[in-house]
């Protein structure tokens, strides 16, 4: 999956890719103080292309510990779990599940919005592909607004950027590919070479997406994210991230 981090203060978009193996679960947000976890489980493409197996988010899990609620969104179903009970909607339904002031709202074949007490929301988009496509599979995208009120202890591949790091980008120069200039980015005490590029935001146009300019951090976001991406692998869909 690719990540786009919009930095409000510096008005820059930073992007990176994380490639891992199908089945692995990446922690996206882990906020032990507010008791919220968001994890994404990877699925693989149907086959390798250029000796590489692309991975995507096939399942996203939300755990609202204080409410005892779990939401599992797969490319098939949207399930709200409360203890031993569960209620599910399929992507063919338009509807809402409401429990303990948590609203899970499904737009048929399009998106799920999870709203908690009106102060926190998440959006998951469904990307359907042609079912007979030789390589591609259905996958999910997740959008987390920066206005969400996570605690300062929030972490995770996305959660760590809720407290925005200082970013300085300079020395913009032509890259190997003339259409992709390079620059130097200083962040978290590291000096990184980043490449200018485009990524897609699918919230408004689910088919073609909207181009977003971003600075791409190589090597699975090394230097931009805290530690190594493998530090964000968690054992279960609702696991909090453990401190390394």
């Amino acid at each position, binding site marked *: 999956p690719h990540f786009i981090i919009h930095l409000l203060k510096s008005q820059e978009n930073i992007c990176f890719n994380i490639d891992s193996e199908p089945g692995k679960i990446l922690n996206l947000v882990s906020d032990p103080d507010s008791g919220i976890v968001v994890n994404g489980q990877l699925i693989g493409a149907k086959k390798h292309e250029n000796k590489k197996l692309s991975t995507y988010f096939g399942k996203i899990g939300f755990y609202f510990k204080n409410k005892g609620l779990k939401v599992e969104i797969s490319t098939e*179903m949207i*399930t*709200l*779990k*409360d*203890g*031993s*009970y*569960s*209620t*599910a*909607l*399929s*992507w*063919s*339904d*338009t*509807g*809402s*599940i*409401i*429990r303990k002031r948590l609203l899970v709202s499904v737009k048929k074949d399009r998106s799920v919005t999870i709203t908690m007490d009106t102060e926190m929301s998440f959006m998951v988009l469904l990307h359907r592909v042609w079912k007979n496509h030789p390589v591609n599979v259905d996958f999910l995208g997740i959008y987390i607004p920066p206005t969400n009120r996570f605690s300062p202890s929030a972490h995770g591949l996305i959660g760590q950027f809720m407290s925005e790091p200082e970013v300085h980008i300079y020395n913009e120069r032509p890259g190997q590919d003339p259409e992709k200039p390079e620059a130097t980015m200083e962040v978290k005490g590291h000096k990184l070479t980043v490449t200018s590029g485009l990524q897609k935001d699918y919230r408004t146009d689910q088919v073609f997406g909207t181009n977003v300019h971003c600075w791409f951090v190589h090597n699975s976001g090394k230097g931009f994210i805290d530690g190594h991406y493998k530090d964000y692998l968690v054992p279960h869909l609702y696991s909090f991230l453990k401190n390394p």
Partner: protein
Amino acid sequence: STLNDEDSGELVAGDDKISIYSYKVQSTIMSRLVDTMIQSKVENKAKHAQNLVFDVQIPKGAFIHNFTMNINGITFTSSIREKSAARQQYAQARAKGKAAGIVRSNALDMENFKAELNVPGGMKVQFEIHYQEVMRRKLGSYEYVIPLQPGRLAKHLEVDVRIIEPQGLRYVHVPNSLGDHFAGITTITKGEKKAHVSFKPTVAQQRKCPTCSTTAVDGNFVVMYDVHRETKAGELEIFNGYFIHYFAPDNLDPLPKNILFVIDVSGSMWGLKMKQTVEAMKTILGDLRSDDHFSVVDFNHNVRTWRDDLVAATARQKEDAKKYIQEIHPNGGTNINEALLRAIFILKEASNMGMLDPNSVSMIILVSDGDPTVGELKLTKIQKNVKQNIPEDVSLFSLGIGFDVDYDFLDRLAHENHGMAQRIFGNQETSSQMKKFYNQVSTPLLKKVEFNYPQGSVSDVTQNSFDNYFGGSEIVVAGKVDANNVQHLQSIITATSSNAELVLETLADVEGLDDFLKKEPHADPKFTEKLWAYLTINQLLAERNLAPTAALKRNITRSILQMSLDHHIVTPFTAMLIENPERNERMLADSPQDQKTGCCPGTLGVASNGLDKSIPSWAKPTPTAKHPSDVFKGPIVSTVSTHITSVDND
């Protein structure tokens, strides 16, 4: 159609020289609406006149809409009239030596349509009946049952079932219900949205044995299927100005239930009925989930309880309850009133003490085989007592074993209190019938289900609010839609599931089905209208049953009558007049009225040896009561003597 020359040929006449040339059943199931035609061509090959009987079983909820009879080229056609008008016309020109009628059957949920006529030797007759019914989903499938009893070998025997389901067919299954004798004869062709089932045994295949002249075709031909529903909670189909909304979500955990089993252990339950009840209860208790609460009330002239309050369905409690039931020895009278009030009290107590999960479903399951004999005997008073005491959110389900019980009373009791009733035969099958019924209500998935449609776009919507939705079933709502001014129809369904409030929206294009149906030659373009009409009439019949005042009852009767005439169907307020082209010979087919005690003994497959081969007694000018064991005559006599002067039985 008339008798064809091609029918002549191989003789399959019995000793009485009556032969069946063909026996055909043709059905089309279009989006849960089944249209069935049964046609039989018979000849009296004897030199003397003989009685020919066309006797077919029809599902109880089905609506007959046409019957024709062709006697040597003379066709009798049918029309639907208001009952008294039909009777008046019938009185003016009774057919000689011919009769037709709908009579109560001794089979579960069935009625018989029977036409009899005295046919001179060498004469050919063709009977053809058409009826329609709405398929109800039970335990995860639609089950279409065709009772096949041609009575003798038929040169051409054919069952032809076409299924058209725009939602897509998940599976089509034809169990070997007619026995191993016919294994491999049925062919099933299944496409994505259509299927075709064909059963055409040759004369040789029909024979009970290679040298037998009797037919092995005697039983139910069953077609089971379900539509795709794993991807969608509901389906909104709109066509020809009507909408049908099917709702059957299944990705939900069951709601916990609070269940009181109220079991009749009076003397009449002694023997097989009790043995079968104990067997069923053991399974039912074993199937209770850990979050369910339950208790058992058993009653004869006294009322006893296994526990005075509701207890959690732990393994230990379930075992204990099973032992308790096992040790019951039926004897004494029947005090239904007291038993039900005790069950209601236990549920109320549990609720008052805050023991019940707010999302749980409360229900009472009453099992009885007879009328009250102790305590309150007046059925209306028992009904009133129950209605007054039972909390609004408790459903009462009734199981009536055998035919000594006033099933209509149990039915009213159940319907009045958000439940349903089922008649059970008191035989070897009792246990499985009880379990099957229980399984239908044992998995409540949703409660307080409401269907909302935009005002102004729809009208004449059928019942749109339901207390419970049970797993494996389906809720169907229909109505008229202003297709000229509306492009899309939106619905919003609200419901409570085990852990959440659900809001489901569905948007359907009013022309969404047009393309599919245009390409489908077997599709009935009026299926939405008919489905709506049948749902509405059934609903009105149920409302009428519970109407508190005579005035309201009369209004409902008028509505039912009008709809029956508009849609050309036989209901309890109409009759079918069957007449020859000259209109100087007429037959009358009424539907049987519910009556206090049923027609039939408590076992299946009563031999019809005593069947009167002459004109049914009710069709004669002055009916006379016959022996009650004469299975077809009880209701026939009662129908005429009780109701002949009243239009709506108010």
